[in-house]
């Protein structure tokens, strides 16, 4: 446990990629296999189980520290991190902590002090928790608390973990990344397999590491002639790989989760493609010819199984834009143009959802008719344009189609691992914008702990300000510090960690989409809201109105709500 704690803090202390890989490599080179497997699970940020509720932990810590619960809560609001708060308020450990605390490895520690607690009575849990508290120093307690409450996030990407492990095992980083995908490493045995220099037997279900695009940084015309590029729509759905090998098909999200249960119609459709095929693409929610957007897909994605009603309300399709494995062969090293040719022959139907009805007729593929069932497996058609102006014009139609813009992929590009700049660019449409007023502020977490950096923002409606978005990012550190001071000075009321402030500050808010929502008081939901500018030049009276926002919806954007209803 001490070794893992040291790793955690070493990773926490540096922003240098090389130092992170060094720390990881040293850890894995020395760790016992069962501890290493456990560490990989934690580092990969997979879903963790919460063994003890944070409510109970707070109560127990308050009692152990001899302070009232409200004081623990005040500390939490100040520190911004519960695991750290509890570690700091607890009495310092006994003198034997240094010897006893060290002995237990990460795996044993997780098994005996966390996993075994599931299903135990609160009293049993409390005994274990209080015993561990006496054994661990504050910096070890922080990590253990995070593991215990299922919230241990470490700032390393899967790619870095794979790089470090590849160095220790002496295999290619891409091979290692592949071995770590999906349900890769779970115990000492599978760790030993992953670390072997031989090819492993259990490759059959694994997806490939995803290749990621970067936001374009220059004028598209600086990318050279359009003939070097393939343009596709940037779909507003969920990235996934469809793996068809042997008897079954598996569908993997970018978070490496197996999502077969959530998209049964796609799995059924995968029977039609040949064995030895891996497709990279996007899960989209579509009704009729209309794309329902990411929010709709996410209603499906977290589920192990889908009720019939939801299947009907949010029908999903898989739109493939790349072919990674063809006839059992890894073809990621072929040029994209070649992979696409093969893709289009395997999956001949192009996705025309979101296009104008006239345009889809022109293409000649009726998307859904009463006679034929909706096809579930389609390919992402190229956006045709023989000049950047033509592509820009196509991109301008994005919002009306329900897509996020255009992807530009170099014709000659191979399918790499992780985010490699240069070959795949996202050319997203400009965000929508409105001026909003700061209404509430809450202390942030991590780097921004103790500063009021989570903001609730509102617009005018009937002479009052109504909240429409929460935004966490977009301001420089110095601005956050300054705004924190304004928040403290203009607080009208406190509800726990949330401060209601006098409406004095105006911000320019950007967002990617907007839809009607019955879940939000304002009746609208904005997607990916973020602050782009502090409008010190504006007074709250100059901020936007709810009517402005509703107009943006009516201007023909996506509609994610099954029953579009505005609360008056």
């Amino acid at each position, binding site marked *: 446990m001490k070794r893992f704690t040291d790793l955690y803090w070493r990773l*926490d202390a540096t922003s240098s990629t090389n130092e992170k890989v060094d720390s990881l490599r040293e850890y894995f080179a020395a760790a016992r296999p069962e501890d290493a497997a456990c560490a990989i699970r934690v580092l990969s940020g997979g879903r963790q189980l919460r063994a003890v509720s944070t409510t109970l932990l707070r109560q127990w810590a308050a009692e152990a*520290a001899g302070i009232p619960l409200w004081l623990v809560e005040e500390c939490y609001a*100040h*520190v911004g*991190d519960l695991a*750290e*708060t509890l570690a700091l308020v607890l009495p*310092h450990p006994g003198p034997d902590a240094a010897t006893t605390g060290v002995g237990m490895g990460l795996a044993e520690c997780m098994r005996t002090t966390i996993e075994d607690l599931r299903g135990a009575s609160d009293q049993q849990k409390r005994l274990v928790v209080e015993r561990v508290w006496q054994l661990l120093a504050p910096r070890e307690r922080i990590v253990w608390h995070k593991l215990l409450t299922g919230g241990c996030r470490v700032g390393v990407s899967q790619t870095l973990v794979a790089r470090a492990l590849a160095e220790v095992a002496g295999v290619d980083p891409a091979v290692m990344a592949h071995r770590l995908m999906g349900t890769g490493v779970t115990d000492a045995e599978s760790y030993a397999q992953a670390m072997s220099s031989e090819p492993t037997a259990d490759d059959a279900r694994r997806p490939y590491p995803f290749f990621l695009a970067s936001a374009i940084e220059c004028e598209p015309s600086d990318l050279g002639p359009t003939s070097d590029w393939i343009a596709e729509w940037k779909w507003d759905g969920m990235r996934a790989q469809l793996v068809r090998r042997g008897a079954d098909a598996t569908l993997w999200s970018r978070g490496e989760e197996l999502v077969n249960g959530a998209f049964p119609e796609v799995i059924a459709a995968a029977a039609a493609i040949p064995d030895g095929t891996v497709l990279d693409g996007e899960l989209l929610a579509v009704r009729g010819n209309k794309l329902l957007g990411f929010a709709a897909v996410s209603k499906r994605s977290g589920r192990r199984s889908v009720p019939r009603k939801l299947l009907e309300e949010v029908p999903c399709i898989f739109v493939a834009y790349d072919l990674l494995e063809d006839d059992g062969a890894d073809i990621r090293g072929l040029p994209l143009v070649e992979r696409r040719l093969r893709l289009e022959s395997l999956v001949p139907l192009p996705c025309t959802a979101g296009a104008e009805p006239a345009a889809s007729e022109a293409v000649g593929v009726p998307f859904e008719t009463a006679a034929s069932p909706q096809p579930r497996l389609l390919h992402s058609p190229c956006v045709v344009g023989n000049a950047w102006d033509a592509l820009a014009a196509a991109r301008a139609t994005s919002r009306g189609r329900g897509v996020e813009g255009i992807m530009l992929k170099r014709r000659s590009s191979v399918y790499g691992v992780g985010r490699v700049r240069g070959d795949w660019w996202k050319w997203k449409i400009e965000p929508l914008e409105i001026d909003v007023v700061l209404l509430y502020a809450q202390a942030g977490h991590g780097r921004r702990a*103790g500063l009021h950096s989570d903001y609730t923002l509102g617009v005018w409606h009937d002479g009052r300000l109504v909240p429409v978005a929460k935004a966490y990012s977009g301001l420089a550190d110095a601005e956050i510090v300054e705004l924190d001071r304004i928040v403290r000075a203009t607080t009208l009321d406190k509800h726990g960690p949330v401060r209601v402030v006098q409406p004095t500050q105006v911000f320019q808010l950007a967002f990617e989409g907007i839809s009607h929502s019955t879940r939000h008081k304002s009746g609208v939901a904005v997607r990916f809201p973020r602050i782009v500018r502090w409008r010190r030049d504006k007074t709250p009276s100059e901020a936007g109105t709810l009517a402005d926002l509703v107009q943006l919806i009516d201007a023909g954007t996506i509609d994610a709500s099954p029953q579009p209803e505005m609360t008056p």
Partner: protein
Amino acid sequence: MSDLLAVTDAGLYCSQGDFYIDPWRRVPRAIITHAHADHARSGCGRYLCASPGTLVLRSRVGSSAPIDSLRHGETLSINGVEVSLHPAGHVLGSAQVRLSHAGTTWVVTGDYKLEADPTCAPFEPVECDVFVTESTFGLPVYRWQDPAAVATEINDWWRANRDAGRTSVLLAYALGKAQRLAAAVDPSIGPIIGHGAVMKMVDAYRASGVRLPPIDRVPPRARKMGGGRALVIAPPSVAGSRWLGLFGETSVAMASGWMSLRGVRRRRGFDKGFVVSDHADFPGLLTAIAASRARRVLVTHGFTDTLTRLLQERGVDAAVLPTRFTGEAAPDAAVAERDDDTQDDTTDMSEEAPV
């Protein structure tokens, strides 16, 4: 019977004695708890401080300011109010102000700490009826380690940097903490270098009889210093400034009570944070409050609301002393980039709300 002290526009005022304690405006007569800039303003008619702090205060308020001093424990009557000054353990010459009038005794702590500090007299509990306490670190997450353990951490960091050929830069407030750290580290590891603002106070400390290890000055127009072996003690405002360029490759550490929190350490972007404070930690505040045996406790700058509520729940007659400044002591009070004034920075703003 009326209170001995009240908050006015100019500061904490004793009407019976017609004087102020740590006023924030220019007043005819000021008793100063210690020389940090937020407690000692220049331009007052007449100052009174504890005698060990006279030279330090003089360097802050100017050579012509009339400064009277009292030895620790010595009593002076001002318009019938008995005044005495008692060690607060915060920085050299820091004092708690004890006032006694018509059978009632008040103590104003100023800033204080209970930990041992070789550069100033230790905190002395003074019994009173009304205890006015600071609360800078008045949350239970703030608990200091043994000063010797922190000194070992600093020495280890310095030694590792020296072995790697890196200069160690330790950021600390120029008055008090810088001298305390210089006295605590192991001078056999390498040379200690002081920033100009630090040296001004080092001179005042030495002239007051405090023993400090040899500390080198940075000569004007220096091109290069320390040869990668030195420990440079400098005020926090030099962080990120060109002045650090004098020392080649550096590792920059901050010494502050706020370094207890990971979020603050990360946000400030230092290579290392050492938890060292000249203020009382949470248990220290409670200990001092109990030792005062006061029947009433007034809580001032810091986590005033929180500490007051806790004391009330524990049956103490406690209240917030309502000052004009009600902001919480924010860890980032000094982060908002100050201008690159590396010449004189003796303000301890980063550890307290301005009172």
